[in-house]
Each structure stands twice: as structure tokens, then as C-alpha cells.
């Protein structure tokens, strides 16, 4: 057996993770859809009745890309981190460590499954939002591209969190303390152009700004930064995650004794 890539292993891990998702389909799909709907009601209806439009876009429609990103980021991170943390917690990680699989293959299986779930979720939320605000998507391929790239990137990020975490609290803390605030501050519900110049500069250090801006551009052709910059930043973050994962498996950090 001298194959370059252990595809059987990738498929096995992917299927295992997808089966886990299907068992918990209720929490996985229904609860994010409900919370997104609540955001629509609260922000879209309550605030939208005062702010009618931002940069020529009806407020209700303007927040859709941000809300999808909010869900995409938190769900990708949480799914992927739980997926790899759980075998560490129960001890079944021994099998992954003793198998002829590379870090790349393990990450492909776990991240692929987590990203798939997030993408499906993102599309469901998009469909849900259509019920509230019918809208047009200017660049559907860019939209899908950003959706897929972001899901993969943040699943990679979640995978790292799942390896780093030493308990269930730490597993929860990153999405709660980092992802959600960064998303809220990253222009989910407003354009960063409305901020004073100093704060506009500060937000440029928030990676989520680039994601939301690029994603929103794909919908409405309005953005805080150029979509190419958004794309480049997403790819940069993705490469950073991949390198970290490669190092983790090479060194055995938190995995091997």
C-alpha cells in the first residue's frame, strides 16, 4: 500500500462526522434557523422601521449577508471544534493517531464535514431570509465562493480550537468571546462607513470585516473594502490555519503524550 493519499480514511472520517450531524439534526439545523429568524424580527423589523436603508439597500436586506456570516462563523467553529475535541475527550483519538493517516487527511475529513454542514445551514438561512425580505443576488458565484471559503476556513479554525481546548468551557469560550463580538463589530448590522474614521481604521484589524464586506458585495455590490481584498484576507487566514494544523500534527501538540 503506497498510495499518496489515504482517500478511504478521508471518506470514513467524513461519513462518521456527517452521521453524527444527522443524529443531532434538530439542534444542528433548527436552532440556528430559529435564532436567525429572531434577529430578523428584532433588528429587521424594530430597527429597520427607523433606519430604512443603508447605502441604498433596504435595511432588512442589508443585514442578511451579515446574519448568514454570523451563523456560518459560529457554527463552523463550533462544529469542527466539537468534532475533534470529542474523540480526545473519550479517548477514541487513539485510533486516529495509530492509523496510517496524515494530518492533512484527518483535517480533510473533520473540516470537510463541518464545512458541509455550515454551507447547508447557510443556504437554509438564506432561504429563510427570503421569506422576510425578497432580494436579488448580484454575483451568485462570488456569493457561493465566499460561503464555501468561509465555511472551510472557520472549520479549520474550529479544528484548531478543538485540539487546543482542555475542557468543554474552553471549547465554548472562543465562539462566545471572540467570534460573536468580532462579527457584531465587523459590520453585521451596519456599514463600517458609518463609524468615525479612527474606528474605521481599528475595524481593519478585524478579519471578520473582510468576510462580511466581501459577502455583502456579492449580494448588493456595496462593500467596505474591495472584494479582492476580502478574498485575499480569507485565503490568508485559511493558509494560517492550515500551517497551524500541520505543525500540530507534526509536533503532536495536545494529541500525543
Amino acid at each position, binding site marked *: *500500500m*503506497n*498510495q499518496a493519499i*489515504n482517500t*478511504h*480514511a478521508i*471518506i*470514513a*472520517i467524513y*461519513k*462518521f462526522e456527517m*452521521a*453524527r450531524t444527522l*443524529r443531532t439534526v434538530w439542534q444542528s439545523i433548527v436552532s440556528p434557523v430559529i435564532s436567525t429568524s429572531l434577529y430578523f424580527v428584532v433588528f429587521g423589523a424594530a430597527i429597520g422601521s427607523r433606519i430604512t436603508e443603508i447605502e441604498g439597500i433596504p435595511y432588512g436586506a442589508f443585514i442578511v449577508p451579515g446574519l448568514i456570516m454570523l451563523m456560518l462563523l459560529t457554527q463552523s467553529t463550533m462544529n469542527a471544534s466539537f468534532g475533534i475535541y470529542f474523540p480526545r475527550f*473519550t*479517548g*477514541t483519538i*487513539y*485510533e*486516529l*493517531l*495509530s*492509523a*496510517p*493517516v*496524515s494530518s492533512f487527511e484527518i483535517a480533510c475529513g473533520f473540516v470537510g464535514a463541518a464545512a458541509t454542514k455550515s454551507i447547508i445551514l447557510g443556504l437554509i438561512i438564506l432561504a429563510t431570509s427570503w421569506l422576510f425580505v425578497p432580494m436579488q443576488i448580484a454575483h451568485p458565484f462570488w456569493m457561493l465562493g465566499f460561503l464555501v471559503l468561509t465555511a472551510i476556513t472557520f472549520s479549520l479554525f474550529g479544528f484548531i480550537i478543538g485540539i487546543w481546548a482542555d475542557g468543554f468551557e474552553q471549547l465554548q469560550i472562543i465562539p462566545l468571546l471572540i467570534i460573536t463580538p468580532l462579527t457584531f463589530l465587523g459590520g453585521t448590522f451596519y456599514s463600517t462607513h458609518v463609524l468615525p474614521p479612527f474606528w474605521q481604521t481599528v475595524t481593519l484589524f478585524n478579519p471578520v470585516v473582510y468576510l462580511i464586506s466581501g459577502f455583502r458585495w456579492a449580494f448588493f455590490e456595496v462593500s467596505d473594502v474591495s472584494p479582492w481584498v476580502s478574498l485575499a484576507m480569507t485565503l490568508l487566514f485559511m493558509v494560517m490555519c492550515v500551517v497551524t494544523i500541520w505543525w500540530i500534527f507534526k509536533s*503532536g501538540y495536545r494529541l*500525543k*503524550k
Partner: protein
Amino acid sequence: MPSIISINGLSKTYASGFQALKTINLDIKRGEIFALLGPNGAGKTTLIGIICGIVNASTGTVQVDGHDIIDDYRAARSLIGLVPQELTTDAFETVWDTVSFSRGLFGKPKNPAYIEKILKELSLWDKKDNKILTLSGGMKRRVLIAKALSHEPQVLFLDEPTAGVDVELRKDMWQVVRNLRDAGVTIILTTHYIEEAEDMADRIGVISKGEIILVENKVELMRKLGKKQLTLHLQKPLDAVPAELAAHKLELADNGNELVFTYDTSAERTGVTALLSDLARLEIRFRDLQTTQSSLEDIFIGLVHNSAGAAA
């Protein structure tokens, strides 16, 4: 016979600073059953963990069928099946799914007929659609064995496979192990039931405090270290061993009702004939006689005690 696993200068110091393995050099021969014996905390699981890729070695190298476990991990690991000491299984997967998963993980294409065969051999076939969490401890242990066998390994590590398994199943399990050996699989096992090692193993290694203190062919070991005793139940008790019998290694037991003769089975002459004729000459008669041989357990306890004494 060429060795299938060769361990050179292996040592392990855990992050805590505890040295679990000193310098280990060990060769496992192709096709043998090797029993690794040693008291709790001796380093058995650590050694197995390093070979299988779960624990990082501090120094030294391991080759499995010529493949380095680090540089050529893919080739090395695909030859190995591991049954871990701890009962670590998934909970919500079915037996069938978890065993199929393992096969995929080790890069093998699906083979339902083969998995069916393993599950039947391990008496798990009727449980194949049950979730693992509904199984008993002994059944979970067998699921772990099935997982380890799912990719048709050449080398099988069994870290205390019979802990918590009832007598009948233990027999079945050893039958599976024998069949594997007959099929050419090399087996390395640890157990605290020494009679199992005595039954099953071709060679025995004893590890104590992170050091291999003995590796020996089992038969050889039993012969070298095995003392045999002949106990004669006397018709009339003796007060002391008669002076005429001083040349023989004799002791009195049971208030002078038994005469115990200790001899070495590997010696050219055991001295049994000479003793019996001397007894006849002195007209010491006996009602009954019996011989006992020291078990591997006695040998093992003797060894570990000696090494503990030497270390102290």
C-alpha cells in the same frame, strides 16, 4: 527468523519528568506470540503506545517490517492493529459502523464479507446493529478487537485483552488469537494472568520499572528457571532427615510426614533414581508421591522481586 519489529535505544520521559522507559532494545520475531509481562506501571502500555504512534518517544527508533515508525509511518502503521488497554469506544455508532470505520481509516476498501467473518468469530454478529453504548464491557472489548482486526494487520498488539472478560469468552478469544497466529500474524500481548502467557506465548519478555529484565523462549525459560519438586508422603513420620540421605537436597514438611525433594529438570541426572534406591535401602516407605513444577507465575514473581531488590 527475521524480526518484524525492531526496537533500538528507545526511551520515554513524560512531560511530567517521569521516566517511564529506560533504554529498551527488543526484537519481535515474525509470526510469534510474544507476551510482555510486568507489574502495574512497568511501562508496557507506554512501549506499545510508542510503536503504534500514540506516544512520542524521547530517544531511539522502531522499525516495523523495515519501515521506520516516524519517517515511514504510513507503511509501518498499516501493518499494525492495536487493542488498547482502556475501553475507549464510540457510543452512538453501531458495531458494524465502527468496525467498518476502522477499516476505512486504515486505507482498505470495503469488504463486508471479511467484517462479517470477524464479527462472527468474536460472537458479535447478532449485535452488529446495536449501538455500542448498549453493550456490556466484555462485548465492548471484543468490538475493540474487531476494530483492530478490521484492516487485516500483520502485527497485532493486545494490551490486556482479557481484563474483564469471562472464562468462556476468554477461551474463544484465545482461539481467535491462535487462528491469527496460524495465519502468520505476529502477536504481542500483555496480561496479568500469567497462566495465559504460559499457555499462549512463544517468547516472554519481562519488563520492570521501564527496563526489559528478561527475554526468553518460554520453554527455555520454564526449563532454566523451572524447579521441580517431588513430595513423598511417608508412612511413618521422621524427626529429621537421616544422615545417610544428606547428599540429596531434602527437606521435611508437614511435621515430618512429608519428604520434599527439589531437583533441576534441566540437569543431566535429576537424582530421583538414586534417591528412591537410597530410600528403599533405608526402608523408608511412602504411601504416595507427587511432583510439582514451578509455574511461570513463581518465576515471574521471583524475577521482579530480585530486580526490585537490586534497584533498591
